[in-house]
């Protein structure tokens, strides 16, 4: 088992000392490469009021490869499938080692504010989004209330 690289230690420290508004990322005690994440749904989006749980894992060759991120909370979004997998360019071929946990989570939050149904991961959701947008947004709102709002 590798000891934790300086970069991961510093990123973790900076996430605590200088937190991102609306986002938390806490490393698990057993594995400091595994983070429990929450993202607040952006205002004026169908996800407003929801707190979405995600998991984030830093692979061995991080930061030369992107972190692995997945939604744990069910979400109705054209770029997020029912397993919680996210279609976002910077998590794939457009990853850059100059990006960080912080910036990636901000990108995901921005994706909630601006769904992109023209390049979907969840085809059925994207189709609904393109054909009956008002209804799709309503469904997203309902799902948010049902799954992402803590009682």
């Amino acid at each position, binding site marked *: 088992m590798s000891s934790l*690289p300086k*970069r991961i230690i510093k990123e973790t420290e900076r996430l605590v000392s200088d937190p991102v508004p609306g986002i938390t990322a806490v490393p698990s005690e057993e594995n400091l490469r595994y983070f429990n994440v929450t993202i607040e749904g952006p205002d004026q989006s169908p996800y407003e009021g929801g707190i979405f749980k995600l998991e984030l894992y830093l692979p061995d060759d991080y930061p030369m490869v992107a972190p692995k991120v997945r939604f744990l909370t069910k979400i109705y979004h054209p770029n997020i499938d029912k397993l919680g*997998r996210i279609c*976002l*360019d910077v998590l*794939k071929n457009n990853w850059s*080692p100059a990006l960080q946990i912080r910036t990636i989570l901000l990108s995901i939050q921005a994706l909630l504010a601006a769904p992109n149904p023209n390049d979907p991961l969840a085809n059925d959701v994207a189709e609904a989004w393109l054909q009956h947008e008002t209804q799709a947004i309503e469904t997203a709102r309902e799902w948010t209330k049902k799954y992402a709002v803590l009682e």
Partner: protein
Amino acid sequence: MGQVRGRPGPSPSTTLNQQSSEDPSLTSKDHSSSSNSGDSVRNSRESLVQGIRQPVSQSSSESERSRPSQAPQVKRSSRSEREKLKEAHARGLLVKYDENVDGGYLAPYGTYNLNLDYQISVVKEAIIERKLAPFYTPLQDFDASWTDEDLLAVLSNLKLHALPHEAEDEDEDLEYDEASVDESLLSKKELRRHLSKKFNKQLKLKKLEWQAAEEKRYLEERATSRQAASDDLKLELYRTSVECPICFLYYPRWLNYSRCCNHAICTECFVQIKRLEPHLPHDHDDEGDNNGEDQKAKAEQDPNLLISEYACCPYCATPNFGVIYSPPAYIRTGLGGIPPALFKSPLKSSGNGNITTDAITDEEDLNAFEVQENYFRKASMASAMSIATQRRGSLPATHPQVITTDFIRPDWEQNLNNARAKLAKRAAAASAIHASNMLIQSNENEIEQKMIQEAMRLSLLEEESRKRRASVK
């Protein structure tokens, strides 16, 4: 797929004839300028550069290590040849204290275990020519309020190379459990894989031993060797350490700068950045993609659809990432400079060429001081001219001072051809199976036809003989 604003989309694909015209072979250049460093340099620059130069073709077999599934090359080198090249590559990655440039080294500290398949000779050459920052030993922490004594104490505890468990990434090679494998039970293919993994592990272990020997030699010799940095040099370098934005480690402030947007990157992070594996345009790679299979099928029909894209700048995503480096004008030690033990801080000497030379009896040392003085003089004129701080806008990838990711990994084209050949081979195998199925089918038809014809012929004969018998009656 979602896109993050502010970053350009996928870079335009490159075709084979767009390859950089830079010539990685620098063999013809004259290295005699290093004669000033004197005989005390354990390896003279000429012999060093010759020793580390490897044929360009090496890089392709080198990369087979990281990509074991790579397509067989047209002319496959033998196992022992490939093993020899791997061993030479591993030796090229050793950090030796007496192979140094301006207080840094010619091989990486070991922040990363993976992706070390760059062309070693090209990188060493670029460092010696001061076109790329040397691999400086990083500081894990740095505080500008440290006294010189604090800083020197930290610096004197630095090793030449990190231990493997200190790296950013896990070393899978070392974890291979060859003892649990019964070689007699393996298929030919499995055996080949097993032997390669076993070799890689043994090589890694050997590399650890070699590096340990280098550490020992450094500890034993550094108090007396002229190739160990003076305290003045160490302080000059690390007094104003800066953090590399990618590994978050601290280095002397003379880092490499991106040619496009002038952001800093240490050499160890720079050599990590390379092209992605050959892939299809707009490839959603692995998970959750419905048309992945279609894409693969399409590629099998036309392997030339596979592309290889430039590595992009990590900071501004400009394709064809390259860096420039402006060395500190007044520090010129090690290969191509004065012995680093003789470096004196320009602030401590009186500046007007009055360096006290009383203690120096050796003519060669005197010579070294003259060299350093020359540099101070030049430095005062040139310090304001540094490209990194003076330039506005970006430099083209073809600029003679720019070192690109393709320049230190010239094998990308070979990799693309290999990937295409592999796909073509797979497609050919698939159509061969199809064709032979057809052939079998058509053979069956033919036999069936023949059997029917034979049956008809027999039945006709039978009928004729029946008629004959009938007419005889």
